[in-house]
């Protein structure tokens, strides 16, 4: 009887303890701060959105693991809510509506022009700030105010690249080739205008290809015969870049090749090998010369989490960082995007991903008349033997 009583007492105490822990746990856990993603994570352009999502998930897991993010007097765990728009504007709208229904105020994406334009009314109606990877200026100029460009636009990086190559590599003749889609075509037109403004001779400005082309030899045969000094792959998808480079080189093209979009070194290495040496692209804080220890740890964590790093994430790591740091600067902005917009004008914080005293701040005044762009470092890379090397670093104001 004593034994039974003792066991019962112990069992009772154990049960009380378990219940106490169970009841206390939610009180100890951080609140969730949901950040959305609406973009393409399937189909031919899956790499664009996947690098976004994985960057966000890696950073969120890292922040949560280290205790969460303190915003005002509360500490939050970051939860990433994702929606695959399949590069379809209709689905992008659906995705943004779902974000609104979930009470999410900050969304990264969409990845392409038409998707970003399509979600604008939904975002503005529901008070959502979104960070597209799309270049139409109308998204960022007044009266628009809810979109924040998440990267460097081609009309910002293109002129800088062409100028550098004109002055340092003697480039005089330029040829452009682009996929027959809205983003690459608008990037090509912007590039052609910038090249002409610099006094370069544009020998090809109408050549296009279907985005699902697998063999680019027929596309590039007539362009290579024009013997340009520089071949610009306007808005090229990472999947197509090595194929275009390989086809051009195998056709005997010996000039320079560049693009204004971010690329992945591994993809170039596998797809074009040494033929990709010298290929110029725009990246983030990736190269050893400028990457901070935080950036290196981010790459390590991403690799551990997903098996392989994607160099596009050098740029895409920034959007979530900007959202969190801006909310830290003004905690009221968690539920008030107007407060967020006001904070953007004066916001400044340390850039954890770059060496030195680089700052996070919002820019875009020159291009959009208001600060609606994240200040991602404009690192112009050159590919060599499986790695990117920094050609030069520029800034956007």
């Amino acid at each position: 009887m004593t034994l039974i009583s003792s066991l019962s007492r112990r069992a009772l105490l154990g049960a009380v303890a378990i219940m106490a822990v169970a009841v206390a746990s939610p009180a100890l856990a951080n609140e969730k701060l949901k950040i959305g993603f609406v973009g393409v994570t399937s189909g031919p352009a899956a790499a664009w959105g996947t690098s976004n999502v994985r960057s966000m998930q890696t950073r969120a897991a890292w922040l949560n693991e280290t205790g969460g993010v303190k915003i005002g007097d509360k500490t939050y765990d970051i939860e990433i809510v994702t929606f695959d728009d399949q590069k379809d504007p209709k689905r992008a709208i659906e995705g943004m509506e779902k974000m609104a229904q979930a009470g999410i105020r900050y969304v990264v994406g969409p990845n392409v022009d038409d998707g970003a334009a399509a979600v604008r009314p939904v975002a503005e109606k529901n008070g959502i700030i979104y960070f597209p990877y799309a270049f139409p200026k109308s998204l960022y100029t007044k009266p628009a105010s809810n979109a924040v460009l998440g990267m460097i636009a081609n009309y910002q990086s293109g002129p800088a690249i062409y100028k550098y190559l004109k002055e340092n590599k003697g480039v005089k003749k330029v040829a452009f080739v682009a996929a027959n889609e809205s983003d690459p075509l608008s990037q090509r037109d912007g590039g052609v205008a910038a090249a002409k403004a610099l006094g370069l001779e544009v020998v090809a400005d109408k050549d296009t290809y279907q985005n699902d082309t697998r063999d680019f030899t027929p596309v590039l045969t007539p362009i290579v015969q024009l013997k340009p000094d520089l071949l610009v792959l306007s808005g090229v998808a990472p999947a197509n870049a090595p194929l275009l480079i390989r086809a051009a080189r195998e056709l005997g093209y010996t000039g320079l090749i560049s693009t204004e979009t971010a690329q992945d070194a591994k993809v170039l290495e596998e797809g074009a090998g040494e033929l990709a040496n010298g290929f110029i692209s725009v990246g983030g804080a990736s190269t050893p010369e400028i990457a901070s220890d935080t950036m290196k740890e981010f790459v390590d964590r991403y690799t551990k989490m997903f098996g392989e790093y994607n160099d596009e994430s050098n740029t895409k790591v920034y959007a979530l960082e900007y959202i969190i740091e801006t909310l830290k600067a003004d905690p009221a902005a968690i539920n008030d995007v107007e407060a967020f917009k006001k904070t953007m004008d004066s916001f400044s914080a340390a850039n954890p991903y770059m060496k030195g005293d680089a700052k996070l701040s919002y820019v875009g005044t020159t291009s959009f008349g208001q600060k609606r762009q994240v200040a991602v470092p404009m690192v112009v890379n050159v590919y060599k033997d499986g790695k990117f090397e920094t050609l030069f670093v520029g800034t956007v104001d």
Partner: protein
Amino acid sequence: MEQVIVNGFYLGAQYALIALGLTLIFALMNVLNFAHGQMYVLGGFISYTIYGKLGLPFVVALISSGVTLAIVGALFERFLFRTVIKRSLREESTMLLAAATAFFLDAVILLLFGEKQRGVPKIVKGVYNDGNLIMPYDRMVVGILAIAFIAGFILYMKYSRPGRAMRALAQDRVAAQLMGVEVDRYTMIGFALGAMLAGIVGGLLVAITGINSGIGGPISIKAFLMVMIGGAGVVGGAIAGGFILGMLESVGLTVLREFGDVTYLVIFAALMVFLSIRPNGLMGKPWG
């Protein structure tokens, strides 16, 4: 112009091989295999893994791609298409099933192999260049192999016992059954053969164009185009459709380049006119 013609022939050989498997399955089962492109992609990734990652000989990779896809095709036929065909009288049921298998394979491939474009080391290095004509040696090898596979397929269908049985099935399913042809068995072999062809061409072309998980849909669409040009369910038509499309693409991209990306616009417009005149394509009759 020599370069343009050679480019067209090379593309045509690739395209014809892609279209063969699709037309075979259509001929045997009246099924539009929307997953054909995804099967091509799976074959490409298998070759990438075996040749590119494990470093085994390319021929081993190619055989593995073909065998794996043959097994996948046989399983699809046995457990999915056969069941649906027996249970449903509506033709669109198999179309919906084919679309579902395409989405399923898309998702599985993305999950297994990731979102990145993949490539493998060149199987043959060097480029032939006589001043007028440029052709990398690896493309020549792939072009020759593609033509060899097409020839082998035709010979197999013409002279082997399973080939004759499949031709009989394609011509008249009921008559073939009455003559003692094992319908279920040869239908499964045919589906497996069609899937195997998709796997082989995916494995072959990974050496030239690499592979990524999102191109299954576009490959299927291109294969449908070739089949429409040549005539559905006709082997000769698929081959002709492949070469015609390859040549149109190559010539169009050179001749029409001044007008922007109108090559495919012209091809589609011409195809619409052509199909309105010859709805069954060039050789549109039951295959056999």
